[in-house]
């Protein structure tokens, strides 16, 4: 029995040490609790302690951040990365589909986003439908399978869209959409008016469906024999929206349409909406703020289509000052291009609108976290939150800043130096494999020859 006790102590110490990391002596941008020189203690994937002076537990892994900057992991409220299907564009209400099913953990966009300091994102269905599909919030846990990526505590959400995209009906001549050759193949709606109609119709149907089920449950409770209603996968997510169990992300540009949608949401008592793109949001910021809805926009990206002309780079700052919860997003699909520099996107609201550093950083960290209703766990550097952290070599709002290390749930998922040093080896492995396969193919040639 005697040797057992020291053994136990040893293993407990080992466990302790293995699970504790301290990021030391960096400039900590907590976003919500100020910026200071200090350290962060990470235990079991969570931020255990953050402050100017912290106790470094014995055996902890120490990451020296002297001269470096630490921010909470960037959260991108609107992307389409790592999805094998994005747009079920065939119908105007595609709420039955879920892009979360199509999450591809092998997509290199995840690693690229990670390298840009993004630790979580909302990857969404496309904007071809007045009511689109279900979205997915996930963390960049590169190497995990699809289920392991998903931020399962995030509230589910659905995509909606207004304007040019959902009213694209095709053409009788099949000019815009190949394959649609006859008028009956046109998709309704063809106008902005029709988009509103589709949305109102869908939520009206969802209400009727909700009632149908309530009636059935009541009859069943009375002991009556009855056939349950047909389950409808298109309407079920919309009932969840009506019941406040599912968030809405609504793609929009023009102020008049934003007002229209605000009225629709008022009529159906739908809360917790984030307007996406919302380039004319500055015109209706008060109306959005009054209702407690949010806005996720670009810093200075516009005029890529007619409905995106009347935009200004002050949009985010104006909406923010009017009390709208504002985030900045990338809308990236394949390349994770803008996504890799959301820190500099945030910096632009300081130039255009004169917001503070914290206000700027908030737009890519805590604000999107609030919009996705994950701010309880991520979005700022606070004790108790997930240890999703980014270490930059310079001030993160500088154009010269590079991401050095990224932690998610306390685990290091990206290290710039390691990445660079791994490259020659990977290149050599790849070249070796290419040669080997080439030789094999040459050897196999005589057998595989086809009759000419």
């Amino acid at each position, binding site marked *: 029995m005697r040797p057992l006790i020291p053994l136990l102590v040893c293993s407990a110490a080992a466990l302790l040490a293995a699970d504790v990391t301290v990021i030391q002596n960096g400039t900590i941008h907590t976003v919500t609790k100020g910026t200071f020189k200090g350290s962060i203690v990470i235990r079991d994937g969570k931020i255990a302690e953050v402050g100017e002076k912290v106790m470094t537990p014995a055996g902890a892994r120490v990451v020296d951040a002297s001269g470096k900057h630490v921010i909470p992991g960037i959260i991108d409220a609107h992307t389409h990365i790592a999805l*094998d*299907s*994005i*747009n*079920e*564009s*065939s*119908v105007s209400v*595609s709420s*039955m*589909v*879920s*892009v979360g*099913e*199509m999450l*591809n*953990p*092998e997509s290199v966009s995840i690693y690229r986003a990670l390298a840009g300091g993004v630790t979580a994102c909302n990857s969404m269905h496309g904007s071809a439908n007045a009511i689109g*599909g279900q979205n997915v919030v996930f963390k960049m846990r590169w190497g995990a*399978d*699809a*289920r392991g990526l998903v931020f399962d505590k995030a509230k589910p959400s659905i995509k909606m869209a207004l304007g040019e995209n959902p009213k694209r009906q*095709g053409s009788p001549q099949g000019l815009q*959409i*190949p*394959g*649609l*050759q*006859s008028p*009956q*193949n046109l*998709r309704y709606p063809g106008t902005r008016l029709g988009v509103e109609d589709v949305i109102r119709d869908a939520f009206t149907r969802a209400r009727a469906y909700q009632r149908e089920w309530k009636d059935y449950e009541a009859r069943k409770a009375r002991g009556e*024999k009855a*056939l*349950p209603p*047909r*389950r*409808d*996968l*298109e309407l079920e997510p919309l009932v969840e929206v009506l019941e406040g169990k599912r968030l809405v992300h609504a793609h929009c540009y023009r102020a008049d349409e934003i007002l229209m949608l605000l009225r629709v949401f008022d009529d159906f008592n739908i809360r917790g909406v984030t307007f996406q793109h919302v380039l004319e949001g500055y015109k209706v910021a008060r109306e959005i703020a009054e209702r407690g809805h949010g806005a996720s926009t670009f810093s200075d990206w516009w005029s890529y289509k007619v409905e995106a002309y009347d935009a200004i780079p002050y949009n985010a700052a104006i909406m923010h000052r009017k009390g709208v919860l504002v985030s900045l997003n990338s809308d990236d699909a394949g390349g994770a291009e803008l996504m890799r520099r959301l820190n500099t996107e945030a910096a632009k609201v300081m130039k255009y609108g004169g917001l503070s550093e914290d206000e700027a950083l908030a737009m890519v960290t805590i604000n999107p976290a609030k919009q996705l209703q994950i701010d309880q766990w991520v979005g700022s550097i606070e004790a108790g939150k997930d240890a999703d952290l980014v270490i930059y070599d310079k001030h993160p709002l500088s154009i010269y800043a590079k991401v050095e290390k990224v932690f998610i749930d306390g685990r290091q998922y990206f290290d710039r130096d390691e990445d660079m040093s791994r490259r020659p080896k*990977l290149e050599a*492995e*790849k070249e070796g*494999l*290419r040669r*080997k*396969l080439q030789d094999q*193919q040459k050897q196999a040639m005589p*057998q595989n020859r*086809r*009759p000419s």
Partner: protein
Amino acid sequence: MKKKFPATMLAALAAVLLAWLPAPAGSAAWTAIRDARIVPVSGPVIEKGTVLLRDGVIAAVGAQVDVPASAWVIDGTGLTVYPGLIDAMSTWGLPQAAAAAQPAAARAGQQPPQQQAQAQQPAQARSRGPLDRPGTFSWVKAADLVQPDDARLGQARSSGFTTAVAFPRQGIVAGHGAVINLGGKTAGEMVVAPEAGLWLALRPSGYLGFPSTPMGIMAYFRQLWLDAEHYRQALALYAADPVNIPRPPYDRALEAILGAKRVLLPAADPVQMERMLKLAADLKTPAVLYGVVRGYEMAERLKQSGTPAILNVRWPSRDRDADPEQPESYRELRIRDLAPTSPAALAAAGVKFAVSSDGLETPRAVLRALKQSIDRGLKPEDALRALTLSAAEIFGVADRLGSVERGKIANLVVADGDLFDEKTKIRMVFIDGVRYLPEPELPQAPPGPAGRGPTSGEWEEQ
């Protein structure tokens, strides 16, 4: 080839004791293959023994078998007897046109009136949602489509295949497969089991309406199965109380969903595998995954979930017309390198797997592909099992097919050496006890435009 063939034939005939002619002869009540090496698959190899057939069934197998005096005796000296090979996912024996598009089904619950009749080049109606039952042909049964005169049957037999699990291929819910023997006078004779499972594909319609993405197809499958369950409930309620409960309209699409024993779903890689396992769980229907190109990474999970696999053994290769300036990624190279190791990985993990001839130029190429896998560590007995007993087990016909055992259907391959040896010649096959002699190898229909067979398990993206 042409010159060599008669010589082979002569050799084959010489080896046969009764060298007089009848080509597919052997209609004698008793047939015995004597002094042959027998590989039963279900048990140890018999180095020198006899297989006795009676009226299409294996009557006895062993080192010592009493052969009735009236039996037609074949001298098996120098020959090896294997169970007939099974192509676990095939279109052999089905009309080729079955794969072509048919007009979209009418809305749920309605029979299509004139629509189907005037269906030359269908001005396909745009599907507006699940109730249009897009690409759904669940009521189609391969067993009803069997064509005994399919020219491909002879080729398949000549390579040792005696059985195929044939599936209709149109749309996304293509219909029910059937286990068929690759020889017989009538279609009915060829069918061994009329219900092998429902073939599902993730081929979006592009712009022809819902569903236009694999994601939409998955949502559609879920709705279709929910509708079938609702239909079942409605029928049960009505049966119990036809006076007060409205009579549910007959629905052929849903009837056929309720009858599905299993679904066949495409999955080329681990990501798709997880999606399909989740989908199958939602459909509450056992799944068989097909494609499984990256089986070397899928073995553990398949084993753990108890899911059988049908491998497409057309190993990925660089496209012949690939742009030489466009280098392949490390990931692609790895897949090309490791795909042939999939069977060994599946066997090592204890996953039940079979193979498909799809996309290969000739049936014989299945054996060559597996030889590649044997060279990469697959045990020959595991390769043989995949081609015989495992396939029979996956489709629930192992009581009658898949091994050389007393009581099983007399489907046999007789070769002059090891089946996976390139130099080995197939001397004859038996199907339902009837002997067939080989034909020269001809190229099958060329593979599709993507260079892969339709069961590669690859999802077609729009």
